[in-house]
């Protein structure tokens, strides 16, 4: 609820959080076990008996990018309504049972991924009940009509509120301008499409995309291999067979720079600059990852933070990220600044980007970035939660099982020339989308 989000505690920087989104990479001497269930689901497992709990997730390539262009929102509703009634169990009964055993069931949803994550105590008295509930919800959501209607109107209310915020307007305009008609150009929900969606759309989406053959199961924690095998079988047994979603197309490159200025009465301008970035499978992944760390992903020591915040005091948060996903997710530079400084901040960011793409990082910067990333490697895998996240990512994006082992060497061997070349191949500073929301200038697209 709202109450939880009041700012009683202020953090010095929010950019770090955004920067870390990119950092979905790691290595380690982690013994990842991998197999397939009887009906074809991929399973990734690491045992850890240190705490009496287990994390389990099941995901499908069925995120918002797999919506029909005419009905954005079906994928996300399929996800969020799954737990609101399954196999005859009403939503209240499901929530009561989960709460009674202290289990935490979360929805997992983004442009690519659609599924559930469960955290439960590992004692079978609680674990079994939690897994039974998760199994029912995954395989047999009821999508009751009255619940569907209620949730749609709640959603509409939330979207209308959110659409007024300059941050939402800016990210929506940015996404549309960067991706055009590509599936990544659509939001998880679009207000005008909600009325067109019916319960049948959810049922059909679930049947078509939640198929065993495409399921990725990740299990981390206090269970044996034999128990993990049984859990994976149980979770996927009720899923239909099928080929699931098709591959996503590549986004079209930007042919020229695009600028959108959107009026809004907010005190700060919300600024985004960017373009399509890279896929998760891109051979330049590590060069881009390390390069972005130097450009704007490394928090206080990155160039964008240095230029925008440290030197000029223009913004609280200024960062750059890549979102390496199934298709080429966005490269994004973001910041907020007092509206009469928007132009100055924009000029600083553009100059910083141009210089970085033209010249690459310095040797000193590359060394510092490597020190930080390699020295920080142990912190990437210092909790069950983080390791479980890696299992899910390795499974979903078909990364090699030794991905974590190769992480440090891949970073270590990069040269300035490689980073520079990778950015030059991917990023053209003259062909960027620029969105500024909260300027008095009207858009004329």
């Amino acid at each position: 609820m709202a109450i939880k989000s009041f700012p009683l505690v202020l953090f010095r920087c929010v950019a770090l959080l955004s920067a870390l989104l990119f950092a979905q990479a790691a290595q380690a001497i982690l013994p990842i076990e991998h197999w397939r269930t009887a009906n074809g689901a991929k399973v990734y497992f690491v045992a850890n008996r240190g705490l009496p709990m287990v994390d389990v997730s099941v995901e499908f390539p069925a995120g918002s990018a797999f919506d029909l262009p005419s009905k954005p929102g079906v994928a996300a509703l399929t996800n969020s309504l799954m737990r609101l009634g399954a196999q005859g169990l009403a939503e209240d009964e499901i929530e009561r049972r989960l709460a009674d055993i202290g289990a935490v069931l979360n929805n997992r949803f983004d442009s690519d991924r659609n599924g559930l994550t469960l955290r439960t105590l590992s004692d079978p008295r609680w674990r079994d009940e939690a897994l039974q509930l998760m199994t029912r919800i995954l395989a047999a959501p009821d999508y009751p009509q009255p619940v569907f209607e209620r949730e749609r109107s709640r959603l509409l209310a939330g979207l209308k509120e959110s659409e007024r915020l300059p941050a939402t307007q800016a990210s929506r305009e940015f996404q549309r301008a960067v991706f055009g008609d590509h599936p990544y150009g659509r939001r998880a929900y679009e207000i005008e499409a909600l009325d067109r969606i019916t319960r049948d759309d959810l049922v059909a989406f679930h049947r078509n995309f939640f198929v065993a053959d495409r399921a990725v199961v990740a299990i981390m924690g206090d269970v044996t291999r034999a128990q993990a095998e049984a859990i994976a079988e149980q979770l996927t047994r009720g899923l239909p067979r099928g080929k699931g979603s098709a591959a996503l197309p590549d986004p079209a490159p930007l042919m020229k720079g695009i600028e959108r200025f959107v009026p809004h009465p907010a005190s700060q301008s919300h600024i985004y600059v960017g373009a399509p970035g890279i896929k998760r499978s891109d051979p330049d992944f590590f060069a881009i990852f390390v390069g972005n760390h130097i450009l704007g992903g490394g928090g206080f020591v990155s160039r964008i933070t240095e230029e925008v915040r440290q030197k000029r005091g223009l913004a609280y948060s200024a960062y750059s990220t890549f979102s390496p996903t199934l298709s080429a997710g966005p490269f994004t530079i973001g910041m907020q600044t007092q509206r009469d400084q928007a132009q100055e901040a924009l000029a600083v960011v553009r100059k910083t980007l141009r210089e970085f793409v033209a010249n690459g990082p310095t040797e000193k910067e590359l060394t510092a970035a490597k020190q930080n990333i390699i020295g920080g490697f142990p912190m990437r895998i210092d909790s069950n939660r983080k390791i479980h996240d890696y299992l899910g990512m390795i499974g979903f994006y078909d990364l090699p099982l030794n991905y974590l082992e190769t992480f440090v060497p891949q970073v270590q061997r990069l040269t300035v020339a490689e980073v520079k070349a990778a950015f030059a191949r991917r990023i053209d500073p003259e062909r960027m989308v620029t969105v500024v929301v909260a300027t008095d200038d009207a858009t004329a697209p």
Partner: protein
Amino acid sequence: MPRSRLLLAALCALPLLLPSPLLAARPTGDVAVRELDNGLRVIVKTDRRAPVVVSMVWYRVGSMDEHNGITGVAHVLEHMMFKGTRRVPAGEFSRLIAAAGGRDNAFTSRDYTAYFQILQKTELPLSLRLEADRMNNLLLSRDEFAKEIKVVMEERRWRTDDRPQSVLYERLMASALKAHPYRHPVIGWMSDLETLTVEDTQRFYDQWYGPNNATVVIVGDVVAEEVFALAQKYFGRIPRKTLPQRKAQTEPPQLGIQRLTVKAPAEQAQVLMAWRVPRLQKPAEEWEPYALDMLEGVLSGNAAARLPQRLVRDQRIAVSAGAGYEGVGRGPGFFLLAGTPVAGRSAADIEAALRRELQRVVDEGVSEAELNRVRAQIISADVYQRDSMFFQARLIGVLETVGLSYRDLDLFIERLQAITAEQVREVARKYLVDDQLTVAYLDPQPLDSAAPRIKPPAGVRHGN
């Protein structure tokens, strides 16, 4: 952060309570404490799950130690703590931590200011050396201040000014309290930020930053005696400080219900209700704070709780509804209810619905099944949170800084579990009464009513 049942549930890091098989599997986190001669307390919790250490320094000073005219200075000082000493120039702190593979940041609340680094365990000496240096040797330059105060003003715009919900809470607290400094926002009022000087910041640092007003909290794969030796080496020579007298600034009794309206650009109305209630001060003797915490759990501690179940799912009167108990802190406690109406319903409708739920608690009490559900959440949360070293360190730091103790963690879980249905009903009846209440309504305004205040950036061109 110390908020609500989640916090208290969160507060239970080392429970011994349940006759449960969990206990057998539970790694005992050893905690050791040492106080140096200069008054610095050092608390070490060993956690060997990864070769990592979380290092924090907590100062017992936050926005509640400010006064009118310099609100926000505690938080501004937090920002300035990264701007250099004689040995470590501006920006170098974060560069050194980054080069060691670490991550660093800081946070400020009403009650405390804390700084942290997360590092490989071998890098702990670097963290302590740098923290000891800036505890005693901070250089506050006019130039750095001039830039950083702009950053903080941007932070205020971003965090509060452009977010109606944040404004609603800020104004609610400013109305609910008349004398106690909790009435000021942690980030400070904008006009105070505009007139704050580097001298104000220097004075605040000189007054409050010393070893006898600080606690070092270390969680990770470390040996306590080695940590104590490092702490002695780096912090041992910093002289004790004479701290300013902490004046109570006691809030006078509230004399009746208070209401306010906040007009802001928004789509929907919102209601925020805050009752002044006791906070946790004597964890072994009091029971009311625990009962308030359990009440919060019954009302909105999980998806099956009363407010989401009844107001959102059953009656369909609210888009969202929730409760919160702020009972861990150095200042007054509050119990909060909040709700957002569905389209076609008003703020008054939501207030009435929230009041009906409270009346049900008073009239009919809560069920054993509901209490058991909240208890189960407490037990499981206690296990889950041990997955995060950062969280454990933060918990210890909060408790120690607000005048409680990490040693109370066991007690919290025990006392929470023992709360009865009658006790929950009793605190609702006794404290959630109109004379102790402040109600704030968000009155939604169309976007275009808020005229742009400032000219557009010169030279901005139209889009293509």
